[in-house]
């Protein structure tokens, strides 16, 4: 366990990048990535919850009895999810509506609970924070990539944030609807996983 702080951070970006290497938290990955914007928004919301819950779990690890730890972790996570929900409702209402049910569902995202259980409950605060940040950014990148890919082929546009939208194909391009619908999400993620496996 003699990893440096930088290593704890960077492992989330490639070695253990969440939806690919740790096959966890697939529901938001598949559900919200109909555009890059939604992917980034979801990723950032999850990152916030991940960092905060990692910090708090690591601070309280001596106090929480091992027998009821899962329940305690879930309540800590739920608290931060409510914070995210309220803040998003106040400042980015449009995005909040787009992501809909998937914001409260961060509570049951296995990545957040998984990191609390596997990392934060065994390591100190600084390391847990680095771990949360790394995994969170990795998750955001993966969601953005999948969202971007599906949006480019499915709609012919790319929206990065808010109104920053680009039309990438000429008007004659017939959108490949399959990509933004449910089956496209599964196939796209499967193929991305396959490409990542090729690089090992």
């Amino acid at each position: 366990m003699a990893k440096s702080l930088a290593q704890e951070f960077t492992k989330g970006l490639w070695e253990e990048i969440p939806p690919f290497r740790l096959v966890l938290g697939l529901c938001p990955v598949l559900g919200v990535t109909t555009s890059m914007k939604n992917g980034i928004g979801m990723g950032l919301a999850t990152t916030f919850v991940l960092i905060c819950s990692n910090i708090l779990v690591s601070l309280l690890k001596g106090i929480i009895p091992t027998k009821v730890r899962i329940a305690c972790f879930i309540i800590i996570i739920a608290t931060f999810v409510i914070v995210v929900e309220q803040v998003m409702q106040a400042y980015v209402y449009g995005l909040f509506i787009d992501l809909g049910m998937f914001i409260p569902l961060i509570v049951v995202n296995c990545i957040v609970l998984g990191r609390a259980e596997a990392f934060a409950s065994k390591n100190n605060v600084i390391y847990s924070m680095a771990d949360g940040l790394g995994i969170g950014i990795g998750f955001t990148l993966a969601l953005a990539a999948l969202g971007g890919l599906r949006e480019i082929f499915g709609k012919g546009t790319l929206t990065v944030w808010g109104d920053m939208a680009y039309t990438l194909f000429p008007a004659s391009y017939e959108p490949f609807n399959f990509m933004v619908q449910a089956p496209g999400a599964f196939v796209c993620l499967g193929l991305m996983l396959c490409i990542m496996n090729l690089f090992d």
Partner: protein
Amino acid sequence: MGDYIVLIISCVFVNNILLAQFLGNCPFLGTSKKMETALGMSMAVIFVMVLAGGITWSVYHMLLVKYNLQYLTTIAFIVIIASLVQFVEMFLKKSMPALYAGLGIFLPLITTNCAVFGACLINIGEEYTFMQSLVTSFGFAAGFGLALILFAGVREKIILARVPKALQDTSIGLITAGIMSLSFFAFKGMV
């Protein structure tokens, strides 16, 4: 009565919780490698989801709305589901050891199954009545079970096939799920 049948069909086939709403995908990929585990998981989900649907509906409408506490929905629901799962586990262990042995490890896993939590949120979002939310919860759970069992059947055959190295395991699983989802799309015009 007819309304309820339409509701069940729409939940099982048209709005299948796994393949159209993307909820509960972690257990979908995690427990579908063997038929036995898929069956156990489906049974446990049906059992807990119907109970959770009824209880969360009551708590939301009788407590949270009454005292204007809707912003606590997330934490209230997850606490209800977690304690319900714990309670069901203890109850089964005492009174029905055979069923408990069958469901065993799958019960605790349900706490973090987003299908259960998601179904409860859908019931609230769509403003269903108590009976309707029980029926939709059952429909979603049955749809979950159906998709999981079908997928497990396909996956048991995939093990025998020669899959390219890069596509192995989860990758081919996801693509298979995509094709299954495509076939469920055919139900779209039904309801």
